[in-house]
């Protein structure tokens, strides 16, 4: 394959850059419709309580209030994004299960009236004992959160490949370590928002979503509507990171409020309500055991995890499987056992956050491997190199890995970070640490069972050929899919990026696509777009062949010129040929769709973690620790990625920066904290500390050459993978600096301080 591309591989400016810097880009909260009402949801103040009565009479009487709804006014059908466990109602019927659980909603003429009305709704509760800890929740006699799930066990996973016990018995060295992750929250800067318009038999929802398709599917199901009568339109979205993948109460409540009032209804969460709705990263308790031979070759691994799921399932079943499924991707070993319990608690439900289930287990595993390396007296990156996965291999849990340049990533990371001169050799207080990671380029199977293709695209060329519009269900939430898909379309058509237009993520005008999750769009949506572009080109070349009186196969098209391959000077402009096509044959349209090959094994849970391709990366960080305060000063971070062919390097590195940023926040600063009544105590951006511009270190993002055979132009993912090694690499750097191992996230200053204090105490005793 020639690497001589005209459009892909170039730093072209984002297609929506200009509207975003001028303030013209409209997010859902910026939209206005005539006669529009404002709606809000009333939520539970208790972590666990029986609803005895709800009295809405006073609220309904307030002038300006147009509708007040409770569970009696909405379908009682349970829903959830994971079809295996539909356990949520639009509004709670018998009891509330966390502080923030949804009880009622109001629509009124303005925000002030809505807030007044919410205060007038009287809900009588019988407060029940609540449980906030997953271990407590499993104990005999613990409060039961859902009657259907005894012992509060939401999901149980037991997978075994090879013979782990045998491997441990034969190992030169076996060790077990336990680590604890924390609850974090995606914290997109744009709050969730939805505008519902129920007109006649048709429901239109403008919303801040990562997947118009799943919203359409679940909204239609809930209200017994035909999919075709539900139109979900994504506006510009101010970040998602996993938190906007499933419909929230805003779409369901807004739809009913709109149907009752006959008016458009805008609903939104404020920042605190976002934290309460949550669906952020699960807290996991992770025990890892590894057996190695004398040379550090991994013989077997047992991962034994428990996760706090919160009050509902959300995407948590997939999260539970992902947590273990992704571990064997980076290293080659045959014997692997994975046990997981996802447990209900009276806290907000957890879901998918960037890296879906994988970053915390990766933190545990990468810390643990550094400790194994320490036991063997081996350089930890050397241990990783010895075990690093090779291309064209299969993991013990039956994932086919095609391209894999993990070794090259490690080697380059070691080189550019100056690892060999630094590890164990930096001045006191300073340290360097590394970790690796891998992630799917799209999930092999959709969230609910269907044989629909995963992605589809249509390209329509304007009748005079001066523009082409890409219609795709792919969902740009800021990561830049609109831009790179237009680059891909132009490349496949032989056209110019500058003349591309895009209509995306509107279930009525764009063809089906599952949306922005599991890092799927570059590969999957890209494959559909490539096919559509090639179909346009083939049709164009046919007409051009007639016009130029040559055979179509002797022609090609590049940068909007159709030319004879044998003599490129013999050429016609794209516009002329496209216009002629329209005159002779009507609209010039190309179509494409993508369905992944059948992937994975046949054991229970085998689909989770399958993907047509996997990205790989190494991260290395250098930190300086204040030995008296425990303050962690991040000096520099290096990321080296194998993400296949790159479509837009500037956007790609931007993804690495952002993923690393989020991972860094989660490593050291971020944690959602609750009081003993289940109330969030830091549900704001002052005390839930996203790093600021002053906290960010120098970041170096580098690539290794790689081409994925299973993907269009050899592409792979990058957006989520770069979050995966981050926490582990910081924990390992802190260890190198101070000789203390922090066994729980975040690696806060106080934890470092405490570990140093304990270490000094121990040394004094000796």
């Amino acid at each position: 394959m020639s690497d001589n591309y005209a459009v892909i591989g170039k730093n072209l400016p984002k297609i929506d850059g200009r509207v975003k810097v001028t303030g013209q880009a409209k997010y859902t909260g910026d939209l206005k419709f005539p006669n529009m009402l404002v709606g809000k949801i009333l939520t539970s103040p208790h972590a666990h309580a029986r609803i005895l009565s709800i009295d809405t009479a006073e609220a309904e009487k307030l002038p300006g209030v147009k509708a007040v709804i409770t569970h009696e006014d909405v379908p009682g059908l349970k829903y959830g994004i994971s079809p295996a466990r539909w356990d949520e109602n639009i509004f709670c019927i018998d009891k509330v299960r966390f502080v923030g659980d949804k009880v009622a909603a109001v629509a009124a003429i303005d925000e002030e009236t809505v807030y007044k009305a919410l205060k007038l709704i009287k809900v009588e509760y019988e407060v029940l004992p609540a449980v906030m800890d997953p271990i407590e929740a499993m104990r005999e006699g613990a409060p039961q959160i859902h009657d259907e799930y005894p012992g509060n066990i939401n999901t149980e996973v037991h997978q075994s490949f090879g013979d782990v016990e045998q491997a441990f018995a034969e190992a030169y060295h076996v060790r077990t370590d336990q680590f604890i992750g924390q609850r974090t929250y995606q914290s997109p800067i744009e709050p969730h928002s939805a505008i519902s318009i129920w007109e006649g038999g048709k429901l239109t929802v403008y919303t801040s979503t990562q997947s118009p398709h799943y919203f359409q599917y679940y909204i239609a199901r809930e209200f017994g509507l035909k999919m075709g009568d539900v139109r979900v339109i994504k506006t510009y979205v101010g970040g998602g990171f996993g938190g906007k993948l499933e419909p929230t109460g805003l779409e369901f409540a807004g739809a009913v409020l709109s149907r009752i009032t006959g008016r458009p209804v805008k609903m939104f969460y404020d920042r605190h309500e976002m934290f309460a709705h949550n669906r952020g990263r699960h807290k996991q308790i992770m025990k890892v055991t590894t057996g190695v031979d004398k040379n550090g070759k991994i013989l077997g691994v047992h991962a034994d995890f428990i996760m706090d799921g919160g009050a509902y399932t959300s995407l948590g079943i997939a999260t539970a499987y992902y947590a273990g499924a992704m571990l064997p991707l980076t290293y080659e070993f045959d014997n692997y056992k994975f046990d997981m319990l996802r447990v209900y608690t009276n806290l907000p439900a957890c879901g998918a956050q960037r890296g879906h289930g994988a970053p915390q287990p990766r933190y545990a595993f990468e810390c643990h491997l550094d400790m194994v390396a320490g036991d063997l007296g081996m350089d930890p990156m050397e241990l990783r190199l010895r075990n690093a996965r090779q291309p064209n291999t299969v993991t013990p849990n039956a994932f086919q890995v095609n391209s894999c340049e993990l070794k090259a990533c490690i080697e380059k990371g070691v080189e550019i970070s100056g690892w060999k001169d630094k590890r164990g050799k930096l001045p006191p207080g300073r340290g360097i640490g590394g970790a690796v990671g891998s992630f799917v380029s799209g999930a092999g199977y959709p969230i609910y069972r269907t044989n629909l293709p995963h992605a589809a695209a249509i390209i329509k060329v304007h009748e005079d050929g001066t523009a082409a519009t890409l219609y795709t269900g792919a969902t740009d939430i800021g990561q830049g899919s609109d831009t790179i898909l237009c680059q891909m379309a132009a490349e496949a058509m032989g056209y110019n990026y500058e003349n591309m237009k895009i209509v995306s993520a509107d279930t009525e005008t764009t063809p089906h696509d599952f949306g922005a999750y599991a890092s799927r769009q570059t590969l999957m949506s890209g494959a559909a777009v490539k096919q559509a572009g090639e179909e346009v080109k083939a049709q164009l070349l046919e007409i051009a062949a007639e016009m130029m009186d040559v055979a179509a196969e002797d022609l090609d098209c590049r940068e909007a010129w159709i030319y004879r391959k044998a003599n490129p000077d013999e050429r016609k402009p794209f516009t002329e040929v496209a216009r002629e096509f329209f005159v002779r044959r009507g609209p010039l349209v190309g179509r494409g769709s993508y369905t992944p090959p059948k992937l994975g094994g046949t054991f229970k849970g085998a689909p989770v973690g399958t993907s047509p391709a996997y990205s790989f990366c190494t991260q290395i960080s250098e930190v300086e620790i204040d030995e008296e305060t425990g303050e962690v000063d991040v000096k520099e971070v290096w990321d080296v990625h194998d993400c296949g062919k790159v479509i837009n390097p500037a956007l790609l590195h931007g993804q690495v920066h952002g993923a690393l940023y989020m991972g860094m926040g989660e490593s050291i600063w971020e944690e959602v904290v609750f009081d003993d009544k289940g109330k969030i105590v830091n549900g704001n951006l002052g005390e839930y500390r996203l790093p600021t511009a002053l906290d960010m270190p120098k970041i170096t993002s580098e690539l290794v050459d790689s081409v994925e055979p299973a993907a269009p132009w050899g592409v792979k993912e990058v957006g989520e993978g770069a979050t995966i090694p981050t926490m582990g690499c910081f924990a390992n750097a802190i260890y190198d600096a101070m000789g203390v191992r922090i066994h729980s996230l975040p690696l806060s200053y106080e934890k470092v301080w405490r570990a140093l204090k304990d270490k000094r105490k121990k040394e004094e005793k000796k």
Partner: protein
Amino acid sequence: MDQFGARGKVLAGGTDVLSMMKQGLLAPEVLVSLKNLAELKQIYADPARGVVIGALATHNDLADSPVLQERYLSLCQTAHHMANNQVRNTGTAGGNLVNAVPSADLPPLLIALGAAVTLVSTGGSRTVKLEEFFTGPRMTVKKDNEILTEIVIPDNSFTGSTYHKFGLRRSGALAVVGVAVAVAMEGDLCRDVRIALGAVAPTPIRAFKAEEVLKNRPVTDQLLEEVGRCAAGESNPISDIRGSKEYRQDMIRVFTRRMLKKAISEGHV
């Protein structure tokens, strides 16, 4: 304010009062804005009284003030590291005192520098030493009908002063502990010292015993460590989301020692 009493709330910059109102923590019937009283924004040296800071001077006004940069650069530095730039453009010095948040940044340093505040009502005005101003979290001796109009730092013999906010990120962080010191050095002897601590008690506090340990003894690293330990013992922090009691007390030890060393060797910084 006579007209409204407890029903009213004075709004200076609004950064604190408005955010409390939005979180439902405060619901005044009347907001009285002072923003347009230009004379309350000034920062100047008054030969008779010392350095005068108008209550409505914003944090950025403090940071940029030539008078403060010359006399008390430590105050400029403190103001510069508060909240974030947007808040520093609207939040005021007076507001930072009147709202009496235990982790506020200006009170410890102003207490260390011996500042006083002027409280004015239609009945007249009175002067209160800042260290006697605070009575508890969000509580002060200011009566509902009084307005805080200015902060005065009387001329003094201090040769150095400084403040450190120990926060959990570099911008927009509240103090885990705040440590302010002012020292009057004569050679290697410390003739006078004031140590004020924030976020470790219901109000900002002086570490009187620690001050006595330091006074009139040759300054050594060992002595400063002893002073730090003493200050830690005098603090009475709570455990909360930003830090445990134990951690906060140890941070008082560390930063008292470090800030003393800095003020002794570098002056007002």
